[in-house]
């Protein structure tokens, strides 16, 4: 398995493996941490700190689960430690509850930026060209349904129908992929 090779390479302090892991997970670890510590700079510090430790401790690391699960669990702990330090618990109490309920989710549900991009791309390819165009205008360009209907010179009703179709297909494509924490991330 690729994971095992990476962990083994880390143990040998293989810098190429380290850089690979870093680039692969950095942005998703940051986005993931944003649900616990809502400050971009702090989050980046915490994640960078984690990788420095990963490098220094690599030879004696024992990763039972997957590397992915290890990274996400570690960064979550770091976020909690940071918050304990900062005493900002009250504000985030509700998310706490939410995420502890979902913590039994398997680690395979975590993902990296490149994995997410691929999955979204693959899902979008399943849409008809028109449907895809409308959905992209809505979600990528952040246009309102009214703006889209004006831009494409179609009725607002058609826009709504196409988006509804897109959601029908996408939700099935993404159902097994996107993790539960993702939802907690969005309900902020």
């Amino acid at each position: 398995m690729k994971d095992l090779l990476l962990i083994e390479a880390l143990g040998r302090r293989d810098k190429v493996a380290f850089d690979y892991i870093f680039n692969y997970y950095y942005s998703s670890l940051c986005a993931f941490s944003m649900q616990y510590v809502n400050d971009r700079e702090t989050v980046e510090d915490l994640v960078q700190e984690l990788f420095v430790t990963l490098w220094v401790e690599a030879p004696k690391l024992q990763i039972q689960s997957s590397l992915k699960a290890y990274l996400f669990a570690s960064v979550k702990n770091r976020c909690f430690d940071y918050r304990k330090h900062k005493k900002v618990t009250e504000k985030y109490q509700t998310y706490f509850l939410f995420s502890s309920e979902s913590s039994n989710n398997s680690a395979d549900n975590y993902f990296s930026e490149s994995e997410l991009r691929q999955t979204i791309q693959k899902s979008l390819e399943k849409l008809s060209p028109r449907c895809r165009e409308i959905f992209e205008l809505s979600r990528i360009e952040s246009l309102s349904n009214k703006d889209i209907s004006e831009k494409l010179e179609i009725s607002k009703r058609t826009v709504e129908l196409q988006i509804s179709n897109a959601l029908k297909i996408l939700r099935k494509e993404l159902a097994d992929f996107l993790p539960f924490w993702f939802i907690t991330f969005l309900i902020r």
Partner: protein
Amino acid sequence: MKLSLSEVEDLLPGYLSGDLSENERSMIDEWRKESTENESVYLECYKAWEAIPLLNEMEKFNSFEALRKVNKRLHENKYSEWRIIIQRIAAILLLPVLIFSGYQTIQNLSLKKEQKENLVIQTVSSRQGMVSEFSLPDGTKVWLNSGSELQFPTHFPPNLREVKLKGEAFFEVAKNEKQPFRVNAKELNIDVLGTSFNVVSYSDETQSEVILIEGKVKLSADEGQNTKEYGTMHPGQRAVYKEEFQKVSMEEVNPEKYIAWRDGNLIFQDDSMEDVVKRLNRWFNVEIIIEDPEINEYIYKATFRNENLRQVLNLLKISAPIDYRIIESKVLPDGDFTKQKIYLMKKNK
């Protein structure tokens, strides 16, 4: 009125973008509450709706820029990394009789180079059956007994040299009156100016002890929130701190037998079998079980030099009416090993 799934799917885009009328909105709210299946259909749609914005969020973090920063920090840490590696290897390789003297030179050199760096705590541990010898950043020499662990910063702050011990160690503290030396052994604190002494403080025991060879040390203990002073020790004394009673008792001893482990020797001098067994357990990483409580009371006097466990047991057998049975260690399903067990019993007449 109940909504069909296709009606719901029609309305969801507006629901998600906030375009629905009040009435339609509450219809969807109702539908979500109807069943858990409905709610999970909704959550799936929600995920699909927000997947692209999440990807955008991730793309705002620049991993290449961040990696550059991390590489810079790793480079700064290089010296300390090397030292940690060297110490780990040394801790494993150093047998009681083996003195790795070049290592100390390397350590002192690299320590001077990074005095300016942040306070980093490092841990040196001695594997079962081995004694490690090494120097702290201030020149203090430490012998760490089998199965013990010492934590200390890569360089000491100017006002205090503080180390944390789990297990047994012998210290030869480098003299520096401006920078007191302190050993933290569970609750017990040992404050030192410049001297040599032995500390025994295993986490599976309810007591800690100090044997002073030379100089002076001051004892105190952190009991709950308070720190209690326990006075000063003089050379040749052994102090035992009992956690349950929060009391220190002192006695005059022959220090030799308490520090013989440094040279790989095991000395028993009028010690009860109970103590002998405790020390053998640590020394050989085994579990000795006394089947007959009467054996506990037997008193021993013996010196062992590099003898193996069987030789030690045979000698015990000669000097008292006891016998032993060895249960070899087994491999557990998780790949771990159980400890070798030895049962001690009275000899059959």
